[in-house]
């Protein structure tokens, strides 16, 4: 059975590792790239593995489990856009092997509907704005999502700084 794990994904992520690439001193030296530290990474991997094993009909209407490739892509997206202090996302399965990654904080909301690898609809809304949110179709470039997350976290921290 396919399973997401730190081992299987090592080397496949495009995210820059933080100070974990070791200098190559000779031909026998090993170059090690390890996963980014994140308190919730293991929980996310467990959740994605669980969603890939959902029974057919989990939603009451015949939906199947989340597609493995879609789950794998979702993990790579998270590794690319999240920093170590990004809060854990909620991950919700869809009716067609798709899934949605969501953050809902006091300051706003982000939803990434991952229909398939490289086929993502992103939506971002901040609380208190009259606009109905920003939307983006995403394939390989998730810079916009990283900005959304940064904006959400900055506005979450702002009241704390002001109160300090």
């Amino acid at each position, binding site marked *: 059975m396919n399973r997401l794990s730190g081992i299987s994904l090592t080397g496949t992520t495009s995210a820059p590792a933080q100070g974990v690439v070791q200098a190559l001193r000779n031909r026998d030296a090993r170059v090690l790239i390890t996963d980014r530290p994140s308190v919730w990474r293991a929980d996310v991997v467990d959740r994605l593995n669980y*969603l890939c094993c959902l029974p057919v009909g989990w939603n*009451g*209407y*015949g939906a199947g489990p989340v597609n493995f490739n879609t789950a794998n892509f979702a993990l790579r997206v998270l590794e690319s856009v999240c920093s170590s202090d990004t809060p854990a996302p*909620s991950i919700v399965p869809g009716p067609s092997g798709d899934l949605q990654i969501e953050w809902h904080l006091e300051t706003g909301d982000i939803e990434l509907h991952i229909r398939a690898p490289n086929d993502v609809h992103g939506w971002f809304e901040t609380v208190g704005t009259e606009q109905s949110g920003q939307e983006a179709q995403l394939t390989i470039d998730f810079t916009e999502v990283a900005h959304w997350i940064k904006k959400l976290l900055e506005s979450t921290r702002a009241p704390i700084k002001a109160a300090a």
Partner: protein
Amino acid sequence: MPLSKPPLDDTGEVTPHDHHDISNEDRVIRRISEEHFVLDTKVSGGKRISTMAFQASSDGNRGMSVDLEASIIDAGLDAKIFVTTPKFFGSVWFLAGFLRAETFMVGYDPLPDNAHHGEVWGIFSKGRQKKLLNSAQWFVEVDGVFLPSAAA
């Protein structure tokens, strides 16, 4: 009275349609799985239903699956028991007329294991999904899960 047969395509699959036997006053029920719950620090209790609970299938002619309450009742069944058996966590309802006003089509798509199965067809944009979430009413409530209409 049982619903009349829905239109089929060449492969025998139900095609998207607005069924004339489903009146605007009829309630359509959407089952909610516990997998649909997300954390949201803005809501009471911190847990609510995801917009993903109101997503159409991308398979063939499928839309968003629902149960047709009037059809269940006509068959002499208890709708709350029907949509909760064997394991389903909760459910919400909409009036068919509300969905039609949002330019969705509400049709009949009986399945081998659910003779009261319907579909809602249309464009499930994020704005519409949020409107569905905000308009949904509990049919079988799940304790500790926030629903905007219940809080209003």
